């Protein structure tokens, strides 16, 4: 049940352009252990700016 909820929450977040922070941390730990990853707030702002940079991908 909590797995389903987590998946729904992840879907809802990606629907508005926010990818998984955990996946980002995993990526950074795996590939760039020497670099400090962005914290949650910085990550959120980074993704928010990225989503609307080109208009935000929306349809008619």
């Amino acid at each position: 049940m909590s797995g389903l909820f987590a998946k729904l929450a992840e879907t809802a977040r990606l629907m508005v352009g926010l990818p998984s922070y955990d996946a980002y941390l995993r990526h950074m730990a795996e590939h760039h252990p020497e670099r400090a990853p962005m914290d949650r707030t910085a990550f959120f702002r980074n993704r928010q700016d990225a989503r609307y940079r080109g208009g935000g991908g929306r349809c008619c």
Partner: protein
Amino acid sequence: MKKHALWIAFAIIGALSLSVVATSRGETINALWIVTAAVCIFLVGYRYYALFIARTVMRLDPARPTPAIRRGDGLDYVPTDRTVLFGHHFAAIAGAGPLVGPVLAAQMGYLPGTLWIIAGVVLAGAVQDFMILFVSMRRDGRSLGELVRMEMGPVAGTIALAGAFVIMTILLAVLALIVVRALAESPWGMFTVAVTVPLAMAMGIYTRWIRPGRIGEVSLFGLVGLILAIVVGQSVAQSPVWGPFFTFTPVQLCWILIGYGIVASILPVWLLLAPRDYLSTFLKIGAIVALAIGIVIMAPPLKMPAITQFAGGGGPVWSGSLFPFLFITIACGAVSGFHSLISSGTTPKLIANEAHAPVIGYGAMLMEAFVAIMALVGASILDPGIYFAMNSPAAVLGADAASAAAAVTAMGFPIAPDMLTQAAKDVGEATIISRTGGAPTLAVAMAEIFSHVLGGPAMKAFWYHFAILFEALFILTAVDAGTRAGRFMLQDLIGMAVPSFKDTSAIAPGLIATVLCVGGWGFFLYQGVTDPLGGVNTLWPVFGISNQMLAAIALMLATAVLFRMKQDRYAWVTMIPTAWLLICTITAGTLKIFSGDPKVGFLAHADIFSAAIARGEVLAPAKSMAQMQAIVFNDRVDAGLCAFFMFVVVSILFFTIRTCLAARRDPRPTAREIPAIAVPAE
């Protein structure tokens, strides 16, 4: 055989339901027949056609690294769970188009629209979305313009980019027009939509400074705020002070929207655009799910005839005959060119495995077509008298319930004046006469369905304004985001001539491009708002033509890629829908320019008015010589626009044929895919 048994069962149920839908004449049928037919055919179409395309035409390779694997950066390129990505992609492609187009198409009865949505999505719309996703996925997730450039050369790429910009302008104008038609003279609706601006700003401040990134909780606050706004809106509308304050004429609303467009697209995204995007996205998904549940519970009978006399042309909602104009009008629910921009946007960068592409590319579009089917059902469960009273131009209906009822009864859909007054009262509006644009009609239908399930007739007015709010909210988000996207496209295009214009961080070029972009859609919006025939009549077909032409461009790109992959023996998969879209759009474009019928042809209409100007005569509905001049000017601009779209699509056809012939001469595959070798991720 055994593994096919279930699918054969779906096929049989689908075929039976469709035959019920198609052969009933005179007696009313239940909406669930249409829903069942659509769902079964979509499932079978997915299982056999989408998977055929995946395995045989594209030869998807689950072992081949996708852009998310090759270039994974945890930000733009992230391997994403299949269902999560499906939700993301569907939310990005679902908009106002599939809701409005089918409602307008219902003037010909429910049957033509149903058949085209079902056939169109399986053979054309979903194929387009899926093919472009595939092409982009094999090329690092590049955008449509870049893909055209890569596969067909720089000239074709620039033409496609310019075409996409103009199409975007028309889209924004028509969306804004729908909002104007829905909110004009409606203080309740206007108040609730106006409240969303400070509400979204409060949410923006919350997510920026107070609890950053808490999208879930801030959206819940926002939802509570929206519901309160709808409830309070009723008393605001009835108040002798505030009611008139929130009552605007269409022309006033037009200027408000233009001003809003400029300001909103300059504000930082976190303040207004992003938080309203949360609200509109979640509300949209919620409303779609609720509508599906509501239709199944209510199982409403269809009151609209299967085919009306307007299938032959002469309808009041939009002009022209079934071929080609029905296919132009339904647009997004069956085939949407805009989806090619989404399928070559964020989705290909997030897909984790090539094997996920069918369910995301093809599957999400089937879902979109299902939304279109629900919109068509919604329009068809209304009394046809109400439908035509809401969707015919004021010039046809006259000013009050008595004249409107008489006009609609004369069309062959008998209705009494007090039924129109009562219907308006039920949804808490002063009048529903000539509320064109599709959104109010759908809102009445949603109010009908939701109040049947929850709250009874007393809740109708609430649900009507809820539906209007939900439509206006995501249209405003689209206007805002689209203006930003248009601005960047324009900076790119002008930057080709003036390189300094490309700097997206500089203030002056950004501001100039924004004003140009808003000016572009504002011009067509103003033209639509002041059009005595209601504007939707003129603008929606132009939008439909442009959108279907963009789809044709996307499918031509896909065809060129198949030829360059040396898969030309399967290129019929994209060539058949391309041919059909070219036939429809070029016929419709030619008719819109040259038809001798002034209701259809822009130039014929302009000629009548310019001849009258020469005689010094003022023709109704114009009231002055200046208005006469404006009508002639607008007609010529619209004709020029259709000509431009036809130039774009024909030149892309030329480049496609040239590319395909060159690919055939070359014995080896020439498609420019990124090689299948894995490189270490960044």
